[in-house]
């Protein structure tokens, strides 16, 4: 669904106002924009650049520096596989491989064709006691196996088909 341009910028304006258009608040501003649009659209970043008086290159620099920011749309469901030390020694790699195979993803391609899933690997979720851990849409699942992970994905797929 296409969002009308005017209302699209309305929300950025609200976010900018909340931070008093303070250039030092660039990171919280970008975080809120991403929460709103699920990624950082180019035209919005240009707009922010003008509003804050920071060059577009500086904003692009910040947006690409932090791994939390993304410049392309993400899938509807976000799967985060923890690849911290504890999860790694408990074979988190096998989970990543299983998901990549199931969704047809690769090192470069992290979002599935149907835009249903995005796979992210994170350095450590701090849930080491539950290693290996997977976070699906902000819910943490501990002691995962490839089978259990695929079950989660298939459940969501099935629900999508129904609706």
């Amino acid at each position, binding site marked *: 669904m296409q969002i009308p341009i005017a209302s699209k910028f309305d929300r950025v304006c609200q976010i900018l106002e909340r931070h008093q258009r303070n*250039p*030092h*608040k*660039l*990171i*919280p501003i*970008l*975080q809120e924009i991403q929460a709103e649009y699920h990624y950082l659209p180019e035209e919005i970043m240009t707009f922010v650049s003008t509003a804050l008086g920071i060059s577009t290159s*500086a904003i692009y*620099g*910040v947006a690409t*520096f*932090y*791994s*939390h*920011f993304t410049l392309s749309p993400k899938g509807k469901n976000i799967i985060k596989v923890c*690849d*911290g*030390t*504890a999860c*790694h*020694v*408990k074979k988190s790699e096998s989970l990543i491989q299983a998901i990549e195979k199931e969704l047809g993803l690769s090192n470069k391609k992290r979002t599935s064709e149907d835009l249903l899933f995005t796979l992210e690997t*994170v*350095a*450590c*979720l*701090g*849930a*080491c*006691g*539950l*290693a290996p*851990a997977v976070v699906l849409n*902000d*819910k*943490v*699942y*501990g002691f995962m196996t490839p089978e259990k992970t695929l079950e989660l994905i298939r459940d969501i797929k099935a629900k999508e088909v129904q609706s």
Partner: protein
Amino acid sequence: MQHTSLEERKQHYHDCMSQYKAKIVICGGTGCIANGALEILHRFEEVVEAKGLKITVALKKEEADYILSESGCQGFCQMGPLVTLYPQGIFYVHVKTSDVEEIVEKTLLQGELIPRLLIHDDESGEPLADTAHIPFYAKQERTTLKLCGMIDAQDIDEYIAHDGYAMARKAVLLMTDEQVCQEMTASGLRGRGGGGFPTGRKWDLTRVQVNETKYVICNGDEGDPGAFMDRCVMEGNPHSVIEGMIIAARAIGGTCGYIYVRTEYPLAVERLKLAVKAAKEAGFLGENIFGSKMNFDIIIMEGAGAFVCGEETALMASIEGRRGMPMPKPPFPAVKGLFGKPTVINNVETLATVPVAMLMGVEKYAAKGTAKSSGTKTFALTGHVAHTGLIEVPFGTTLREIIVNIGGGVINDDGTNGGSNFKAVQIGGPSGGCLTQEHLDMPLDYDNLLNVGAMIGSGGLVVMNQQTCMIQIAKFFMQFTQNESCGKCVVCREGTRQMLGLLEDIAEGNATKESLELLEELAHVVKVGSLCGLGKTAPNPVLSTLKYFRDEYHAHVFDKHCPTGRCQALRTYSIVPELCKSCSLCAKKCPVHAISGAKGVPYVINQEVCIRCGVCMETCKFHAIVK
């Protein structure tokens, strides 16, 4: 509210609590919530009310028979969800929603224990009723973590009832800035974030700077993979962090505070925000705190996913809205920090320890631990160990005590007791190193660890069994630092990339003697030549594995063999003739037709053709294929 004294609030809390017959504490750490702790909490409400009794939640404290409270992480994540019943302190583990009815009926109403839900002694098999008798807890000395896992993180009154904010008030109203710094120096507290710089001295250096604006930053960007103690403190006892910051602000003349939290810790962010709001309402933060002339406020900032932001100058750049890149030091933050103003920056655990040490009496705190590393330290115990979780022990405790007594010993890959299967411990994350069998009895403190090429880091302790390939571990950490290197200085940016390439060569069997020499040389260059702590410590995992597991490197490089079979390219699969039933299934599945044989004759794998994919091993129903 602002004019009620701490004593009155404390008394009010105790009066209020005395009306309840029992208090049910459910662990609400990330681990237990993932295992369904919140559902259990709601189920308790339902079941108790269905019995015609009244139950209230800790935040409301209404008139009722029982009170339900959600605590922060209790550390024993593996056994979760955890339910504790006070006043007896009965400790139930692996509780399911279906157990709630039985707990209410038997334990709550009749005082009977349910052996099935208790922890059992490893040796005698006897059920253990309370935490005082469970080895995992009994062998620890929970000081900074004491309240974490006991009190409700969302309830400021419960923190006050345990003498919370008394030390902040004392520092603000009764002590001079100099006295606070002296007190900290006397406690012997050293930075818990890794470097181990004396906290009292750091504060004093900032204190002597003359400036109207000074900042206190709490570094909650706990990025080390395998470490989660700061998360637990922020989630479980956020008020202790705030109190530590108020005391730090008093010591240096701070006017504004920042808590920088990783975005990967949403629960910590939420609880800190709640805690700051409650402290403001109580008059502990804001203008004229505790009725004094001092103004101090705290802003919470979420990180955006960059490991290097754990480095102090990078963290400050990030707060200022720039790329999180480190700056050369000097000038140190004490002189020119955030927005160019004098700044003190402490780790979460350090700040949370400040009020605890003061409350205990700084001399008493200093007497704990070893001469040069006083006090206690939290560790995140994970990996191949029976009991994983968050622990706290005095400095000077040995690895053996931690792994065997608290962790319950090493386990095999399949989770069974590993006995003497211990291989190494990785301590201090990507900046730390590996310790082996010979270090098991070495007392752990800042200096001993530095001497053997590791460091305490933020305190991640990952135990590894014999099936772990050390080249893979070194490669894993190098991959991590290479990925997280900010790219500002060439030595770190290119050095880590080349080192990773060399480690990949080793793991894939493409390395020669020269690669090994080059790897070692590069490691030393990156160590001395990098700008910040990330680069300076990045070669540690490689150097320490080279030091203690050189034979394993040699096996990979010269014999093209991975002793643990973890490096796929160096694996060899073979069929055990005695076990082979000649079913031909493996031969059919082999994608390159490397397996041949005939009925009645054991099958064999042609090693020249084999691509080591492992399909045959997965297919064999008789476990006849080994690697």
